[in-house]
């Protein structure tokens, strides 16, 4: 697959949002769609979410994450959408210039008419909640542990304590139990469950894994590897209650303490972020404040069901495609002006072809070197002359005007680029 230099729509991220956006963009009628994905396969985080609960809304079926992804992966393959895998997008500009690097295609620079940001989110870290204690091996965010267990094929520990009753934490509690580990406790700082009730029943209650609300980790114990967690109860003001500390022996602490939309690239592109969601400000078309840059999925705000992510992806992809189509038309209506022989610059740089229907169009320029002899100033479409003007001399200090007459309308319609040059008569 050869990468094109310019695409209609580039989608960054091939998780559920990105896949949906790319598919819908192609179906809306654009030619060139590319998905850039940093993993070595499509599907995003769904590939490690091997539990079910996906597709209940869209497919009326209860599917595991990878199966849900497979549906869209197959559909994408059938639509001749370009993919660049194992590729990290380094930078995106507000003019939608994309820089990415991949082991297989090297350093790539691409242009696109419309861009879809679908980078998803990252997990809140131990450091961000400033958990006191030592820094041994055995402290993982739930997602990283999930990757090890389900994709890399290794267990990160034998005895677990999980901080956070979010869905990822509860799902992992069950997953680890299924693979023979012992989950000692789930601690939740809030006075209520933060994940779905069905997960509480099917992941914790079913396996007699105790949940303690209004509890948190006071500190991590262990020098090289986690040896225990000191838990503590907290009061209404989220302050630890002295005397309620408990040392829970374990070798792994899993953190399920929140997801944060991953908007580093969005920032680089000049996209404004809402400090409340940590995602871009978007309108009803899922367009950000930067024209032609759209966003969908967890990168905008953290969703609960993937089915809604897919819907947002469809909406976004459709709008991005429509933007790209309008761009193509708009661009086809414009002709670039180029400085030719002995011309330093020409203004305007770009001309709307339709403008000649209304009136002649004036070009202004300066020459590079003086010619103290009669010259032609010529506007050329390749070898075809569009118009010319006689001048007795040209000097860099004196601006030169030339008008493209309305009679040149047809000639200009044929051109994508016009150059202006000065030649001796």
């Amino acid at each position, binding site marked *: 697959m050869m990468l094109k230099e310019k695409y209609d729509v580039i989608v960054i991220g091939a998780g559920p949002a990105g896949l949906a956006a790319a598919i819908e963009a192609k179906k809306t009628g654009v030619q060139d769609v590319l998905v850039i994905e940093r993993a070595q396969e499509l599907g995003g985080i769904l590939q490690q979410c*091997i539990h*079910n609960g996906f597709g209940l809304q869209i497919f009326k079926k209860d*599917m595991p994450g*990878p199966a849900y992804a*497979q549906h869209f992966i197959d559909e994408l393959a059938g639509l001749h959408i370009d993919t660049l895998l194992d590729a990290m997008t380094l930078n995106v500009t507000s003019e939608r210039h994309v820089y990415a690097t991949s082991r297989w295609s090297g350093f790539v620079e691409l242009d696109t008419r419309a861009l879809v940001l679908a980078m998803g989110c990252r997990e809140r870290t131990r450091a961000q909640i400033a958990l006191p204690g030592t820094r041994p091996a055995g402290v993982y965010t739930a997602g990283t542990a999930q990757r090890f267990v*389900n994709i890399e094929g290794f267990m990160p520990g034998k005895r677990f304590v999980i901080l956070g009753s979010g869905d990822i934490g509860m799902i992992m509690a069950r997953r680890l139990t299924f693979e023979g580990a012992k989950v000692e406790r789930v601690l939740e700082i809030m006075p209520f469950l933060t994940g779905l009730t069905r997960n509480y029943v099917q992941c914790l*209650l*079913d396996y007699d894994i105790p949940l303690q609300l209004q509890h948190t980790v006071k500190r991590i114990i262990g020098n090289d590897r986690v040896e225990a967690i000191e838990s503590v109860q907290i009061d209404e003001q989220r302050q630890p209650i002295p005397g309620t500390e408990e040392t829970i022996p374990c070798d792994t602490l899993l953190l399920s303490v929140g997801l944060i939309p991953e908007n580093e690239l969005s920032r680089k592109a000049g996209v404004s972020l809402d400090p409340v969601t940590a995602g871009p400000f978007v309108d009803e078309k899922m367009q950000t404040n930067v024209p032609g840059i759209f966003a969908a999925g967890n990168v905008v705000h953290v969703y609960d069901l993937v089915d809604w992510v897919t819907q947002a992806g469809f909406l976004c992809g459709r709008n991005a495609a429509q933007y790209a189509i309008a761009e193509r038309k708009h661009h086809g209506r414009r002709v670039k002006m180029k400085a030719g022989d002995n011309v330093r610059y020409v203004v305007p740089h770009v001309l709307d072809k339709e403008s000649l229907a209304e009136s002649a169009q004036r070009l202004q320029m300066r020459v590079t070197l003086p010619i103290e002899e009669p010259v032609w100033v010529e506007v050329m479409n390749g070898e075809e002359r569009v118009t010319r003007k006689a001048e007795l001399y040209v000097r860099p200090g004196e601006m030169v005007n030339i008008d493209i007459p309305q009679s040149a309308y047809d000639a200009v319609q044929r051109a994508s680029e016009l150059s202006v040059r000065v030649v001796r008569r």
Partner: protein
Amino acid sequence: MTQEHRKFICITCPRGCALDVTMEGEAVFKMEGNSCKRGIDYVTGELNDPRRMVTTTVRVRGGVHLLAPVYTESPIPKPRIFDLLAEIRKIELQAPVKFGDVVIENALGTGVNILASRNIPAKSEAS
């Protein structure tokens, strides 16, 4: 007959009603806390034939990943979950694996098939 109280959380819909069930022997005598009659069906199911969907992974030989995710085509009896996991643990599939491949047919005689959740392509030499 002695009465016994048992608590359930219904998961039929996201509401998650907390059900307070008074049992008389094996039968449900009274139920409180349900917002609709599906709560009664849920408790009946949980008492007589609790079932769960099970998802896990299975080893793969020669694939781009070491493991393939698998799932039960329909819910299996809850008491048999760990037996099922032990059965799956014994298996090693040969790549390529295709989404929907039957990994175990009629697992443990429950009538439920275990299927592959996704494609796992064979590992090519150039990768």
